[in-house]
């Protein structure tokens, strides 16, 4: 029983982190209908940046993250402006393949520079337990992950709902021509959206780097988690990713609880497939779009 409660609590906390991984993917899909295969690789690129910068900046993780976010925003602007914007109106496959190509390039550049070794980013909360009773243990690191992720989701939600940038993004996602008629340069809006996606992905990348570690090719395995989160939460729904993440996290850890740790990932996938079969457009698709 204790272990069951523990699994659920850890699952919820893990789910927060998953949401941070998935939210950028959801955003980009919701806005420009793009399935960004490179999302996971960009996330890991963020992990590497945080790692490198924190070494350079006397171990300050906050400063390192700040620099990383700026750099990743630039990477996003470049990717969208120079590559993806050119193929978006040519159909789904070309855009998807471009992101595929980008993913491969990013992974292999990382491989070239950093090799295939497993890396990690040190966390000040790594060995702190916030709650430690006979019943449950809540690790400081998991809790901080969850809080940062939740904050990230709500900031993004606020930007999309309440700001001029957010409104222009929603306008462009709903009706490109009408948005242009309002004076919104939709191509530029897509650039901003990609920047937001990579910035949020990098936050996820940092948390993943602290909690699980990473290497140059980790992107693809996190991409599928991101897909899972987004599929449950509904493509394009920002708050949905938080719910999707929590469902996936809990499903995985309960899977491990009932069937053994080897089955954690498998049960996660099975849950996704069952949800997709019952609700082919995501669990929350009927409730929200944004």
């Amino acid at each position, binding site marked *: 029983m204790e272990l069951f409660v523990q699994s659920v609590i850890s699952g919820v906390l893990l789910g927060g982190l998953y949401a941070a991984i998935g939210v950028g993917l959801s955003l980009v899909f919701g806005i420009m209908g793009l399935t960004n295969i490179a999302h996971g690789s960009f996330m890991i690129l963020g992990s590497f940046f945080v790692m490198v910068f924190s070494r350079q900046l006397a171990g300050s993780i906050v400063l390192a993250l700040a620099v990383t976010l700026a750099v990743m925003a630039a990477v996003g602007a470049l990717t969208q402006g120079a590559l993806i914007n050119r193929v978006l109106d040519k159909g789904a496959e070309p855009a998807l393949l471009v992101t595929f190509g980008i993913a491969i390039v990013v992974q292999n550049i990382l491989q070239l520079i950093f090799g295939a070794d497993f890396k990690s980013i040190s966390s000040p909360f790594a060995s702190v337990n916030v709650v430690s009773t006979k019943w449950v243990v809540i690790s400081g690191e998991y809790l901080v992950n969850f809080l940062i992720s939740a904050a990230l989701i709500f900031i993004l939600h606020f930007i999309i709902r309440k700001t001029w940038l957010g*409104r222009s993004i929603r*306008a462009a996602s*709903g009706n490109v021509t009408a948005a*242009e*008629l*309002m004076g*919104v*340069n939709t191509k530029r809006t897509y650039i901003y959206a990609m920047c937001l996606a990579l910035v949020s992905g990098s936050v996820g990348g940092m948390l993943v780097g602290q909690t699980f570690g990473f290497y140059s090719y980790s992107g693809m395995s996190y991409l599928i988690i991101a897909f899972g989160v987004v599929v449950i939460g509904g493509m394009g729904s920002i708050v949905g990713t938080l719910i999707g993440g929590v469902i996936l996290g809990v499903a995985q850890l309960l899977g491990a609880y009932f069937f053994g740790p080897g089955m954690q990932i498998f049960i996660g996938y099975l849950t996704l497939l069952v949800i997709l079969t019952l609700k082919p457009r995501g669990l929350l698709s009927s409730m929200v*779009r*944004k």
Partner: protein
Amino acid sequence: MDANALMAIDGLSAHYGDFQALYDVSMRFPKGKIISIIGSNGAGKSTLLNSVMGIVKPSAGKVCFAGKDVTGKRTSAIVANGITMSPEGSSVFEDMSVHENLLMGAYLPEARKRKDSLLARAYEIFPALKEKEKQLATFLSGGQRQMLAIGRALMSDPKLLICDEISLGLAPVVVGDIYSRILDVNESGVTVVLVEQEVKRSLEYSDYGYVLVKGRVVMEGETKDLSEEEVKEAYFGTGKYA
């Protein structure tokens, strides 16, 4: 009326693939006037507007606004000069509230600074919108959508307002109401272009009219000089236009 035209269209042609939808169209929209462009379905009205607004790239010709060449520019760049269009079928942002839709109209920097007063004016012109302020646009009726589309267009504080097929699918009472609002807008100094299928009402409300048939201007003139019969003959290709 040529010299001080707010917008001048010269020799505009447009193609969709091999199909030519506009032939050498020239028009003048004088400042402060209401101009109507009349034509049936498929006459090229939408193509004309889309070419003017940069949604379709014209294959030949020139569009000048306030002396500035805007031909083939990006739509958002054209709009930034002070032109706005209320699109056909009153396409509003479905999952935004009425309030947010109006705000989107004031997206450009100049309008954004004065969004509160512009918002007040829009609600003053269309009080029905004020009541629905918080509702999602997708729940509005046809007439309310049309009002929202025009109100949103006005939020940019335009010099030129183009209305595409306001009367399409609306009850005559509602259309009359919207038209009288447009007169108010015109009174405040905005040049208005009405694109319509309906001959009578267009002539009644505008100062100058163009008749578009199969992508060509077949008739134009001050509306006081145009008889409804003659316009209809041109429109349907009967009588001496057969």
